[in-house]
């Protein structure tokens, strides 16, 4: 029997995600996929999977899982979630092995929102339209078109589990103190100069209206120009900052609507999408305009980092495994605290 991961309990926003569902934007279906692509790729790299392999995404929550028919190698990356294996603290951003009957518990993250749990060999769930990614609104993908819940049993592909040393990876910080970089447009001409100044100078707080479709921000009202706040619907991208009549900006994300009738003042650069996604309701951000050239440079830099990820994990010494694991957990959290 192949191994399986059994869900004992999990948060409401626990979903299967892979690289996303491509090719259907023209039919109104956005790609979904990980809210933090870097975390998703890192978790997969740690267990030797292709970086876009199906994995479990946690949104501001955690879960408890039991291994059937193990052993199973797995790793968690992204928002730092305290974890325990059979009650003993273990580290995220490193691989570890769970035996048959072992229990893994993942707590709500100390900081940030999204964490990804990857399992060596991958999750054997059939995709829909080329992807296992759950698209919430379309009830497409995931497990029967829904998030994971207690009682689910995820069959795993036979793992190429070898006796190799466990591996670890430094988390890439979210840099909470630095502004989110944006490129103005496509409809910046639908706003007054004061409206654009507000976007670039004020602080905005993530509201409670934040999910995989998009995050709405509270803050000073962004002023539209004389033509008002309705446009003839046109295309959106992940990162579009649309401003409805309330003047409160909404950053569209992985499960967004593909077209929209509100003017879009600017676009979050692709390399910073994860830095938006990892902010919780109540956290404050600022926006900084960069040139398109700079946005492209950063996108290419990010693509190179992800391409190199499979070679980056470093071996963890086997002897000191458990001790070092606990240690790493502390260090990782400290590093995030300092650099963010």
């Amino acid at each position, binding site marked *: 029997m192949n191994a399986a991961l059994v869900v004992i309990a999990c948060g409401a926003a626990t979903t299967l995600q892979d690289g996303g569902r*491509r*090719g*259907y*934007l*023209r*039919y*109104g*279906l956005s790609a979904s996929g990980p809210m933090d692509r870097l975390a998703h790729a890192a978790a997969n790299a740690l267990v030797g999977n292709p970086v876009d392999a199906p994995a479990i995404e946690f949104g501001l929550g955690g879960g408890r899982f039991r291994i059937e028919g193990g052993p199973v190698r797995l790793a968690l990356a992204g928002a730092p979630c305290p974890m325990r294996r059979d009650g003993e603290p273990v580290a995220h951003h490193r691989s570890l092995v769970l035996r048959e009957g072992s229990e893994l518990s993942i707590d709500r993250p100390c900081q940030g929102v999204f964490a990804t749990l990857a399992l060596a060999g991958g999750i054997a769930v059939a995709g*829909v*339209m080329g992807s296992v990614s759950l698209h919430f*609104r*379309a*009830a*497409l993908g995931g497990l029967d078109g829904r998030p994971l819940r207690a009682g689910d049993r995820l069959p795993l592909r036979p793992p190429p589990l070898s006796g190799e040393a466990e591996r670890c990876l430094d988390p890439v910080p979210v840099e909470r103190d630095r502004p989110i970089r*944006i*490129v*103005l*447009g*496509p*409809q910046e001409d639908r706003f007054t100069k004061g409206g654009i100044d507000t976007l670039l100078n004020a602080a905005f707080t993530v509201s409670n209206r934040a999910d995989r479709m998009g995050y709405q921000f509270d803050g000073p009202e962004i002023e539209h120009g004389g033509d008002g706040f309705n*446009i*003839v*619907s*046109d*295309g*959106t*991208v*992940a*990162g*579009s900052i649309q401003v409805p009549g309330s003047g409160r900006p909404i950053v569209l994300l992985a499960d967004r*609507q*593909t*077209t*929209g009738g509100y003017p*879009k003042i600017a*676009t*979050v*650069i*692709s390399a910073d999408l994860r830095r938006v996604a990892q902010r919780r309701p109540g956290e404050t951000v600022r926006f900084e305009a960069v040139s*398109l*050239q700079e*946005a*492209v440079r*950063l*996108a*290419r830099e990010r*693509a190179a980092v992800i391409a190199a990820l499979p070679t980056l994990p470093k071996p963890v010494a086997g002897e000191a495994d458990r001790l070092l694991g606990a240690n790493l957990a502390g260090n990782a959290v400290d590093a995030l605290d300092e650099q963010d």
Partner: protein
Amino acid sequence: MTCRHPRLLTCGDTAITIEFGDAIDAGLNAAVLALDARLAEAALPGVVETVPTYRSLTVHCDPVAADPAELAQAILRLACSDLPSPRAGRIWRIPVVYGGEFGVDLGAVAKHHGLSPDAVIARHVEPEYRVAMLGFLPGYAYLSGLDPALALSRRPASRPTTPAGTISIGGAQALVASIAAPSGWHLLGRTPVRSFMPGRDPIFLLEPGDGVCFEPVDPGRWDALDRAAAAGELVAERLDA
């Protein structure tokens, strides 16, 4: 088709929008669909997906494979070349049960325009519409061709949910909805047709450029048509084939 002085709009590092105008207009939409067809032929490196809308084409690109600024100029050159006439789309007849629980706003729309509900249905059924775009949610078809006498700005407050298959109007637009969603549009009826159905071939019934006609059907036929559609039948009929 000649140059309509399209405008390039930057959508960050992963997309470019080519805007032909800012109105709901058959000529603008034809230019958009023609450029979309030309781009598909051209297969420019770095182009990932395209999204035609009423008046613009959004081209999603891979900033690693191509420089978006250079790609934008190449697309603009194509947009300003002689574009082919858009292909003749398919024409679909879509059954609709109007009014009652199927179209809760029919009476209010009739009253607003000083028409009888039957006159609203007749005017909604009369035109051959064009699918100008698919967007918002999977399979949502936005149509051009609504009788201007029916145009009505959206409801002041949107409903938290409207049923799958809703046939509605908002402003000068007509809509075929696929899945249940919030909406501030006026609900005239419902179709059993699944414009989006994973596992069926085709997954998406309608393509941008297709023609759409509505056929009023008796509420008594709903259950049978809905069952057939749920079993994977198209239920919509092709009129051009």
